[in-house]
C-alpha cells in the first residue's frame, strides 16, 4: 500500500468504523441500509471539502481515537461535542482543517453526544461491497475488512493533489451552520409521526410517549437505542406478522419498553410500531448516549416532509456556496 495516501491508526478508541451514506436497495436480501447514523453530518463534512457527498469517512463513537498522517490532508468533521485536535491546535466541528505529514489528529471524549463523522479529502479508498463502502458490523462485511478499526491499521485514502494556495485559503473561509456541525443536544426532543401500531396502544400509553422523558439504556448500539422509563401498554396482545421496520421506527416489545431503531436495524420486525422519528431528527437520535434523557413530540407527515425538503434546499444552497468560495 502507498503510505503516502493513507493514515495510520495509533489508537482506535471505543468504536471507529468506515461509513458512507449506506447501502439502500439491498433490503430484499435482508441487508439494512446502515451507513453513517447521521448521514447528514457526513454529507456536510464531505461538502466542506468539495468531496462527493457519498465519499466514505469515519464514524467515531465516544472518542479515544488518535491517527497519524503520512502526507498533508484536508479534513472536516461534524457531530457530538468532541474535543478534536490537530497536533495541539483545536479543530471545531463544521470547519476545514489541514493536518501535516507526521502530524496527529485526536478525537478526545465528547462533552455532549457520542458520535462524530470525519470526512477526509478524496475519501477513504476501500472496495465498495453491494454499492457501498460502509461497514456492516452485524454481518461483518464492507468498510475496512468488515470490522471496526484497530490500533496499527493503515487505512487507504484517495490520492490527494498537492495543496496550493487556494486550498490553503479555504481552510479558514467557510464553516457549516452550527446546528449541522454539532447537532447533539443534552436533553433532545425527537419529533415523530404515528406508526401503524399507534391505535394498538391506549390513550394513556399514547400520552405517556408524548409527555414523559425516557432514559437511554446502556444496552444501546448502532442497531437501536433501548429506552427505560414508563411502560407502554398495548390494548391487544395478538401476535403480529413480521413486516418492514426502518431507522427511526419506535417499536414496543411485549415488555412495554420502547426501542428506537437506528441505521443498522434489522429490515423486518414483529413488534408494534408506535411511531417513527422523522428523518430530519435522526441526527439527534444518532447522538443518544446511555443515561441521557429523551422526549418525543408528534408532528404530521406533511410537516415531516416540509422539514426534510427545507433542509435539503438549505443543503443545496450551502453546497453551491462552498463551491463558489474556491
Amino acid at each position: 500500500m502507498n503510505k503516502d495516501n493513507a493514515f495510520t491508526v495509533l489508537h482506535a478508541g471505543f468504536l471507529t468504523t468506515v461509513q458512507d451514506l449506506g447501502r439502500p436497495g439491498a433490503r430484499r436480501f435482508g441487508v439494512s441500509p446502515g451507513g453513517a447514523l447521521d448521514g447528514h453530518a457526513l454529507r456536510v463534512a464531505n461538502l466542506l471539502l468539495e468531496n462527493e457527498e457519498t465519499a466514505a469517512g469515519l464514524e467515531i463513537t465516544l472518542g479515544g481515537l488518535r491517527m497519524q498522517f503520512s502526507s498533508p490532508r484536508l479534513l472536516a468533521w461534524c457531530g457530538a461535542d468532541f474535543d478534536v485536535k490537530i497536533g495541539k491546535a483545536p479543530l471545531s466541528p463544521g470547519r476545514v482543517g489541514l493536518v501535516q505529514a507526521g502530524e496527529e489528529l485526536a478525537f478526545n471524549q465528547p462533552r455532549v453526544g457520542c458520535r462524530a463523522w470525519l470526512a477526509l479529502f478524496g475519501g477513504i479508498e476501500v472496495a465498495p461491497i453491494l454499492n457501498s463502502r460502509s461497514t456492516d458490523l452485524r454481518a461483518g462485511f464492507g468498510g475496512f475488512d468488515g470490522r471496526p478499526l484497530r490500533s496499527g491499521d493503515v487505512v487507504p485514502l484517495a490520492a490527494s493533489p498537492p495543496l496550493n494556495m487556494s486550498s490553503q485559503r479555504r481552510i479558514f473561509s467557510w464553516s457549516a451552520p452550527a446546528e449541522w456541525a454539532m447537532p447533539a443536544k443534552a436533553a433532545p426532543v425527537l419529533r415523530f409521526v404515528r406508526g401503524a401500531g399507534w391505535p394498538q396502544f391506549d390513550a394513556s400509553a399514547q400520552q405517556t410517549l408524548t409527555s414523559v422523558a425516557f432514559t437511554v439504556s446502556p444496552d444501546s448500539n448502532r442497531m437501536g437505542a433501548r429506552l427505560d422509563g414508563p411502560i407502554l401498554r398495548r390494548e391487544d396482545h395478538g401476535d403480529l406478522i413480521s413486516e418492514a421496520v426502518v431507522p427511526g421506527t419506535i417499536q414496543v416489545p411485549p415488555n412495554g419498553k420502547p426501542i428506537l431503531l437506528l441505521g443498522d436495524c434489522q429490515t423486518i420486525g414483529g413488534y408494534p410500531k408506535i411511531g417513527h422519528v422523522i428523518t430530519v431528527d435522526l441526527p439527534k437520535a444518532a447522538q443518544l448516549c446511555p443515561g441521557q434523557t429523551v422526549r418525543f413530540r408528534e408532528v404530521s407527515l406533511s410537516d415531516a416532509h416540509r422539514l426534510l425538503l427545507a433542509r435539503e434546499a438549505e443543503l443545496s444552497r450551502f453546497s453551491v456556496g462552498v463551491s463558489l468560495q474556491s
Partner: protein
Amino acid sequence: MDISPLGDCGMILRIRDTFEDAPAEVLDEVLGYLELLRRANLPGITELAPSYTTIAVFYDPRALAPAGADPANVYNDLAAALQTALANGQVRLKRWDSNAIDIPVCYDEKFALDLDDIAHHARLSPQQVIDLHAGADYRVHCVGFTPGFPYLSGLPRELATPRRTVPRKEVPVGSVAIGATQTGIYPMTSPGGWNVIGRTPLRLFNPKKNPPALLCAGDRIRFRPIGREEFESLMR
C-alpha cells in the same frame, strides 16, 4: 388496497391480513404485486421489499416535490399513484421452479440445541420430529432480520413451538430454528429466540456474490438430513 405510512420515506402496502391458512397463495400474490410495482416503475420510488403479507415501498420525498412545490401532498399523491398502478396493472403469477433447493441439515444433538423441547412440546420422539421436519416442503416468503435470513412457511403444524422465553445471546451460524409457526435459518451468529433443531453447513449470505443471499423470496426448499461426517466435509 390498504396503504399506510412507514415513517416519512416509506409506506406499507398490505396485500393480505394473514398468510397461515394459504401460505402459497399469499406468497404468490405478494410476489405478483411486487413484480407489478417493479414494472410500473413509479417516479420517486427507491426500493421495494416484500414480507409475509405486505410490501414495503420506499420513496425519496425530494424526488416527489420539485423545488417550490408544496410538500403537503407528497404522501397522498404517491399513495394515489400506487393505487392506480395496482388497479390498472396485471398481476402475473410467476411460475416457480418446481424443483426444491436442497438444504443439508445435521440434526445431531450437538447442533439440535432445542430438539428435546420441540419433541416434548409436540409429544413426539426426537426422531419423529426430525422425520416430520425433513419431510415437508417449504417456501421462502422473505429475507430479513439479518442478511440472508429466510423466513419460511411449510412447517408441519405439529412442530410449531413457542419462542424461547429468554432469547439466546448467540444462536450459532447455520442454525435451523422454529419460532411458533415460522421456521428459518440463521446465516450468521446472532441473538435469537427461536428453537434450534439442527444446523446447515451451507453459507446463506456472501456479500461478494450476486445475489448475496443464497435464498430469495419465492424459492422452494427441502431439508435433507445429513450425519456429522457429511456436515464436517461440507464445512471444509
